[in-house]
């Protein structure tokens, strides 16, 4: 009974502090890990940029297993973090359940939509960015065969794959696309050995450009591509530096900008609802830097820029897998 009282007391104290004005923002990093060199790392970098620029402080937790989702989210809310950014589509159902329990806390979810008055949903137009790197892949391949390695087999990743396939087919209708998924469980985000084997298998089938949209697994894909002497395309973060000369480009998804913006706006600037970050708002794009300049020829650059302009103006509409759960250019 005394223990119960202590716990209740502690809970009340936490609830009180949660109501305090000194709210720090919170960030919940998804499975795959903070240093996946991809999706989660991008969010972490955005948060770090905010820390450097404002000198502020934020709370951060990293999920270690599927079972921790609810527990971690509640703990973060009870510690008084506000707003809280939740990374990844896999947290959707958890957030739907928890958001009504903390009406004063503002939540933002990346890569999914949660319809609650205190939740902001942020989607990226992955199909647009993937279309662009698909154009680059199709211009670069000499074997007319390109590969795609996805992480967990979920609609989000199929959206990447479909956009990529559309870009490839639009540029080179004869090109063959080999698409593989690493797995059907969240461990597929963090299995570079399997990723490497998938990449090697695609190379043996003739692929000479491989696009990895697989979180931490992608590190193994990029490594295998570099070992086998073919090109690869990174994802989410700019991964060009990982294997200069082998990483053709990266489909950057500016999760860092989204996190930075949400942190900077804080509770005052928070607006619930849906925000789509697309090519036009520079939420997605392709990366060119000193590590891959030599690979992106003027011809490729012109073609990509043309596609980019086409997408922004609405002339080209890369198929969005979310709309009908299918892809005209690729079967799964």
């Amino acid at each position: 009974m005394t223990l119960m009282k202590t716990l209740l007391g502690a809970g009340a104290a936490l609830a009180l502090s949660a109501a305090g004005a000194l709210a720090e923002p919170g960030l919940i990093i998804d499975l795959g890990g903070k240093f996946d060199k991809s999706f989660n790392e991008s969010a972490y970098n955005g948060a770090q940029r905010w820390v450097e620029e404002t000198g502020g402080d934020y709370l951060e937790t990293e999920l270690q297993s599927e079972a921790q989702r609810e527990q971690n989210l509640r703990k973060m809310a009870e510690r008084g973090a506000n707003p809280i950014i939740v990374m990844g589509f896999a947290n959707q159902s958890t957030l739907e359940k928890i958001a009504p329990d903390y009406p004063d806390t503002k939540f933002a979810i990346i890569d999914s939509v949660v319809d609650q008055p205190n939740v902001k949903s942020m989607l990226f137009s992955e199909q647009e960015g993937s279309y662009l790197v698909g154009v680059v892949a199709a211009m670069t391949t000499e074997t007319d065969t390109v590969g795609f390695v996805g992480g967990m087999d979920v609609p989000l990743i199929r959206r990447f794959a479909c956009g990529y396939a559309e870009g490839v087919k639009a540029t080179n209708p004869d090109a063959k696309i080999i698409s593989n998924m690493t797995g059907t469980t969240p461990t597929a985000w963090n299995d570079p050995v399997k990723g490497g084997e998938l990449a090697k298998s695609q190379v043996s089938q003739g692929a000479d450009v491989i696009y990895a949209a697989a979180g931490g697994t992608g590190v193994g894909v990029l490594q295998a591509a570099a070992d086998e002497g073919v090109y690869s395309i990174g994802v989410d973060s700019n991964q060009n530096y990982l294997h200069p000369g082998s990483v053709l480009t990266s489909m950057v998804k500016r999760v860092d900008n989204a996190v930075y913006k949400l942190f900077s706006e804080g509770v005052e600037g928070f607006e619930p609802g849906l925000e789509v970050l697309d090519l036009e708002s520079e939420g997605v794009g392709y990366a060119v830097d000193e590590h891959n300049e030599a690979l992106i020829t003027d011809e490729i650059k012109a073609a990509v820029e043309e596609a980019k302009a086409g997408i922004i103006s609405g002339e080209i509409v890369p198929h969005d897998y979310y709309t009908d759960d299918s892809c005209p250019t690729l079967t799964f």
Partner: protein
Amino acid sequence: MDLATIIPILDATLRSATPLLFVCLAGLFSERSGIIDIGLEGKLLIAAFFSASVAAMSGSVWIGLLAGIGASLVLSLLHGVASITFRGNQLISGVALNFLASGLTVVIGENWFGLGGRTPQLSGAARFQPIHLPGVEAMADVPVIGPIYSNLISGHTILVYAAIVTVALTWWVLFRTRFGLHLRAVGENPESVDTAGISVIRLRYSAMVIAGVLCGIGGAYLATGLAAGFVKEMSAGRGFIALAALIFAKWRPWYALAACLLFGFLDAVGTRFQKLEVLGVNVPTQFMQALPYILTVVILAGFVGKAIPPRAGGTPYVKER
């Protein structure tokens, strides 16, 4: 299906069978001596971590290999102390090792590198590079044999070849040396070995040392040969698959080779044919990915026949009651 399809699959088979093989042989030694080794997974994991992190720090894969072996040895001896000296429950000790390895690797990794339990990417001399056997270029144009030799047999890291040699060595030690005879006897009937004036404790400890070294090499291959660095939980159940292969192989070295190659092959086929059309029916990806596991169950349940483990397995030896 043509040669150009089959060779890459067999090539991948060899790569994924190698860590299984080392671990399977490690289990063979310890179980033949009467120590059940559930902790193979943990040893593999900790060896992968230490080999990758020391290779990253020193820049030499060989020093990394030694560190991996060392770490795996420590866990192996811990298992020995718990289950031989203190006569504890071998299953519990093994499970504890698995937890220990899974936690330690992340904690130490975070402390050393601050990369969330990863090690930095390895490159150059910090990784095992593929070696090209002599005459590859000359042979490459010969039909059938050429591609087999240059793509399948040549071009692996040294540890792949070492794994095959280890199988032969294990067979020789186990069935052609006095030590092997004693080791097999101690797993079946430790009393008789003791009566013959041979130390049961020493034999079992030496089996644990051999198991530790083999797991260490397996872990090093995983992190510095197959991959280019450590990520948390990278052993991904391979220790348990190796244990299944060991039962499948009925605790025999050459059978172990066959079993590990079979599991490697299933893995490779699942990777290569994610989409397969059989008789006009599309086999879903999920089925192909589950296939290795389904076949494991089917094979273990139906085809292995009667697998009789070493009789003294799992029971600590008490000299006098």
